[in-house]
């Protein structure tokens, strides 16, 4: 990924500004994810693809070009595709339709290896999500397709399969439980909100920013199932289930995790 030194400096300044700016909680800014946010902002504004245009005209649900607050209302139904789309699916859609890009390269490696460097997708998601930091999670349930996505997400959540008979619910339908020393959130109720609202997040064990799409893919691995794909129907439906269960929680993205 292209590294913009100037953007990194700005991010560094923002991080040190936490020492003097009382309007930001220090915890929020002492997070290497902000480097990725600035990389993402630069990528968002840089012309790319055969059409040589930036993503600035991308409609994330609140109108073309509106990034602020868009993440708080994703996934949502989009009339132009007649689909419920999550942040990653929508960014892919804009790359394809606005920039005219062939998505083969992006889809070949949407998520980075541990240790990085981060991918374009991770940076873009970090940037878009950060523009809803501090807002309330308000994933819409107005359109019938959004309601259907929630119902599908719930059914996927309880679907047991594979050699270990695991569903999402195996680990995430009770409160105050752990796997080894890792605390598990109950994602069937409002405990889901702080979890959903803190992705994408910098994972210090891996040294990279991870997205919710990556997190769910990782769950499909631990479930011993086939590999969940970025922007897929199941990914989006599960996100709708989690986000709606956690509606009203404060978005703290980009988060910082173990």
């Amino acid at each position, binding site marked *: 990924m292209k590294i913009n030194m100037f953007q990194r400096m700005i991010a560094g300044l923002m991080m040190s500004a936490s020492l003097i700016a009382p309007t930001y909680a220090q915890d929020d800014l002492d997070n290497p994810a902000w480097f990725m946010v600035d990389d993402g902002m630069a990528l968002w504004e840089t012309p790319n693809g055969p059409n040589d245009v930036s993503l600035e005209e991308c409609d994330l649900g609140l109108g073309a070009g509106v990034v602020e607050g868009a993440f708080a209302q994703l996934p949502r139904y989009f009339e132009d595709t007649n689909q419920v789309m999550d942040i990653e699916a929508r960014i892919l859609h804009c790359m394809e339709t606005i920039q005219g890009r062939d998505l083969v390269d992006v889809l070949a490696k949407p998520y980075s290896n541990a240790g990085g460097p981060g991918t374009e997708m991770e940076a873009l998601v970090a940037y878009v999500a950060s523009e809803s930091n501090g807002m309330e999670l308000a994933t819409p349930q107005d359109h019938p397709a959004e309601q259907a996505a929630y119902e599908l997400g719930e*059914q996927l959540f309880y679907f*047991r399969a594979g*050699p270990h008979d695991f569903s999402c619910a195996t680990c995430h339908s009770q409160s105050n439980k752990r*796997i*080894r020393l890792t605390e598990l959130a109950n994602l069937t109720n409002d405990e889901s909100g702080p979890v959903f609202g803190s992705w994408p997040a910098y994972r210090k064990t891996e040294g990279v920013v991870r997205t919710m799409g990556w997190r769910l893919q990782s769950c499909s691995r631990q479930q011993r*199932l*086939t590999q969940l794909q970025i922007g897929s129907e199941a990914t989006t439906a599960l996100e709708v289930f989690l986000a709606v269960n956690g509606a009203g929680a404060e978005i703290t993205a980009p988060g910082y995790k173990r």
Partner: protein
Amino acid sequence: MKKVVMIFMSLALVAPFSIAEQGIENVWKASTKEVGQAKYDRLSQDELQDACSTKGGVKEGYDVNVLRQKAQESIVYPKYETFDPSYYLGDWKNGESIAKNGKGLQYNDDPKDPNGGNCYACHQMAQEEVAYGTLGTTLQNYGMRGQSEVMMQYTWAKIYNPHVYNVCSMMPRFGVNGILTEQQMKDVMAYLLDPNSPVNN
């Protein structure tokens, strides 16, 4: 031309309003890729998986007693003429490493490596191991219950197919699904039941 029309028709079928008709298995299938040893056949549910894929309890239309009976019939016990605990017990040291090993059957795992049992993900076992999960009950001092034939058969069944007892148990069916070999299960049994095992000290 006809082919093209059919492709468009099938695309129309995956539009957001047709979820129920697709079936959950097919949504998983369309949303995932086969990687490594994880193939699509893993998404086909057996009867028990289907029965237990619901919020709390058992799906309507299933008879709990029938499911438990079938689970009982699935269990293959070690063969012997006159009972002796040694027929069930392997090496507790091997059992310990199986209990601590969380690998196996994931799409990024090497199928040539032995699978782990990952008991510690959910159960407290030896006192000295503090990194234990809490989804399952504690198994500390499990061997205090002795080594009678009933105890051996109960524990073997619980590992082989836990649905015999709690019909929608969250625990994997280590025997039925071939996650662990018979020898590995005996080693885990020894880790639980051998008086010298750290589980009992």
